[in-house]
């Protein structure tokens, strides 16, 4: 197993469980289950024990390993600079070894099989891949400055489609030169990679790269921070060299071109930093710039924000494999409580997966009369005056 040589070096001091200000548990799986086994240090020691034949890799072992959301909090907080950057790589390698051994939780196996067979996590036919944009009058990419890549959730998930449509509308309204990719693309592979299914990831990435390159795409706007991460950081090694932007990064500099209304009621908004925009790529500014440009919006911060943000629990494939559900302290429910405690009326998100996870959590917590979850694109869209009464 790759990175096996660092496993025994973990002291299990527990910094990885917390945010930088220690306010609460910040490892999603550990928060959900509380057993030491689910903490990053527990995983390190269990993997070492498995490699040393001290324990077997049964179903619980697999659930522990695959419940990591790859949020990167452990990497950000680990006290050991010599190997902290390799923590997630070690967990991914452990998952890869488990997949090779045929020991994966059924939900992981089924999810990967769907992607293998259909090219997307929903098992939907590729021919439906442009339906999300029906009626928007957006051009197909044909040499515009940017291509818009919306990935599985934006294509096949009803809620994701709404968000994708809002983003496309904003980009159009702001006069951004972009087109949607006219050929059916494949799952971006970000979470497949995090799950340790390297061969499948490479296959997906190469297929997408082939499409992008054939269209001569140079700049890509992504709907999802997951896509942004993998296209920006992992596709280049496979021959996919593009300038990649999350849509908030483009929008942040185009807000002045939107017809924003100055007479909307005031809103108190807390931003949930997405892991793949924030911790993985250190962009804590773009989404805030967009929100701060909105008249009447007052930002509040949750205790865990920016590099200390709590993952919604949907990362690393867990949105689909659902290994963290149940119980009062799922990451999403904890996050919903935190946003309400911060006094926010709106919990703003910049990721379709976060949106769905947190919307469900707000309902589970019976907080839906106190706070609502809105994707940033929808917040902006809701504060535009499309009748021409620009600010």
């Amino acid at each position, binding site marked *: 197993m790759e990175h096996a040589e660092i496993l*025994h*070096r973990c002291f*299990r001091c527990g910094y990885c469980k917390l945010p930088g200000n*220690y306010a609460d548990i910040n490892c999603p799986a550990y928060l959900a289950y509380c057993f*030491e086994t689910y903490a990053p240090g527990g995983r390190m020691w269990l993997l*070492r024990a498995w490699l040393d034949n*001290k324990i077997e890799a049964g179903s*619980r072992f697999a659930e522990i390993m695959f419940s990591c959301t790859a949020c990167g909090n452990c990497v950000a907080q680990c006290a050991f600079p010599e190997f902290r950057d390799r923590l997630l790589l070690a967990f991914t390698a452990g998952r890869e070894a488990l997949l090779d051994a045929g020991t994966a939780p059924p939900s992981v196996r089924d999810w990967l099989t769907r992607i293998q067979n259909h090219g997307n996590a929903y098992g939907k036919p590729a021919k439906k891949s442009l339906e999300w944009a029906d009626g928007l009058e957006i051009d197909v990419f044909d040499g515009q400055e940017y291509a818009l890549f919306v990935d599985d959730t934006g294509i096949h998930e009803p809620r994701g489609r709404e968000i994708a449509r809002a983003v496309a509308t904003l980009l159009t309204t702001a006069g951004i030169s972009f087109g949607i990719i006219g050929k059916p693309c494949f799952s971006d592979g970000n979470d497949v990679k995090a799950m340790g299914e390297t061969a499948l990831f490479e296959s997906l990435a190469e297929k997408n790269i082939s499409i992008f390159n054939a269209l001569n795409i140079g700049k890509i706007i992504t709907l999802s921070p997951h896509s942004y991460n993998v296209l920006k950081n992992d596709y280049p090694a496979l021959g996919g060299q593009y300038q990649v932007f999350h849509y908030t990064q483009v929008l942040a500099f185009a807000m002045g071109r939107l017809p924003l209304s100055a007479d909307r009621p005031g809103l108190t908004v807390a931003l949930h930093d997405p892991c793949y925009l924030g911790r993985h790529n250190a962009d804590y500014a773009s989404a805030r710039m967009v929100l701060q440009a909105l008249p009447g919006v007052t930002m509040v911060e949750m*205790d865990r924000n920016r590099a200390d943000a709590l993952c919604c629990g949907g990362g690393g494939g867990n949105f689909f494999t659902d290994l963290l559900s149940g119980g009062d302290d799922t990451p999403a429910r904890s996050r919903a409580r935190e946003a309400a405690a911060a006094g926010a009326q709106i919990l703003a998100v910049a990721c379709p997966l976060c949106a769905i996870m947190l919307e469900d959590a707000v309902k589970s917590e019976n907080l839906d009369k106190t706070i609502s979850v809105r994707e940033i694109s929808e917040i902006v869209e809701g504060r535009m005056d499309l009748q021409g009464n620009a600010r």
Partner: protein
Amino acid sequence: MTADLIARLGKITGPRYVSGAAEERYLYSMDQGTMPPAAPDAVVMPKTTEEVRQIVMLANKLKVPVVPMGAGLVLSGLTRALKGGIVIDMKRMNRIVTVNPASRYVVVEGGASQGMLKAYLDKHHPDLKHSMPDAPPVATLAGNICIHGSGHLSVLGGSHSDMLNGMEVVLPSGEIIRTGSCGVSGGWFSRAPLPDLSGLFLGWSGTTGIVTRLGIKLFPKYRYNDVLIFVAEDPDLMPDMISRLTSVQAAEDMTPWMTPKPDWARGFLHINIAWGGHTKKELIFKRNLLQGSVREYIDRKIAGFLPLPPPQKGRFLKIPSPDLARFADLRRGGGFEYVGAIMAIEHFPDAYRAGLAIAEKFNVAYSLGARIIGAGHAMMFFFAYAFNRADPEDVKRASDALEATNTAALEIGGIPWKAELPAQKQIIEKMDPDTFALMGRIRAVLDPNHIMNPGNWEKD
């Protein structure tokens, strides 16, 4: 039996928070130290005092051992299930219940962590702080107090058990009792003037009850903070230097340290002195007091204060500091353990020399140091050894060094702190027999079925 136990525990806490799986049994069988593993049959995570009570009642009925656990960071194996049974992981009981700013105390649940309280106070009561140990921030307040821990306000306030105002405890019988003022008035402001029943649960290594709530003293938080490092070469002068520095009663924390790394530190004895002030004027006034207390040594040019640039000061003032955890990677092997011996200040030179001799004899990577407790009333002198967990010979070397250190500490006149099993037996050997017999009688009264962390504080 185990399946039945787990099913019954699941009815108390919900099945999500009980496990008898190999993974949990493996991980909870050990801590980061050198003690051999001892696996529980089950791990359970209660959320309320009532759930703790029901677990204890069940254990009593089934005569199954119970081992309470905080963060499991004690390093001396005290949360291992030596006779099997149930490990009660308290970390779901982690609420900060209330803060009383007027009387400067906080009430927390038994699984609340040091870091969480720090964050809570920083946000809601920025003029208050509690004494944090050098342990990582996930360490629990209850665990640290119950082992007589110490921390960054220990010169000011003594051991952390001295900062305890009272406790709610589930007895081995299932009764719930309250010690200190909270047992009478509802306030958690003092252990006096009542018979001090808190002592029944302090230093007993989880053999007398399970702490579910604690009242803990808070202290004023200063706007301005500073640190000095006093450096000397002669260990025989250290007791007097410590005595002088503590005599002015300006410091909050005082931690001597001696380590071969980095190279510039080798052979020198350093004393970190941390203090604070509400104003710059107060800060400077206290600094002058501290510097003046050891002026004679400076004038004789046999000791002095180390010039510290601001970035380095910031590192020394960081609470908690991850540097201590990083010591575990000294051998690139994720392990360190230490003997912390509570001893009188005058034994500093003997302890220092014993530590060097043992490190040399066993060829172990070492760090020596101390935390002064009270106004020079005692110290926790620590002998820390890093080891590589992947190298059994290295683990054995560290383990042997620890045993030798325990022996040396006892010979010097100290008492190993949070003693692991072999050290407990060494202490018992030196303990007044009637005192040890009383410990046994107290345990028998509190725990007639002998379910609480059995194997600890026993002769055989």
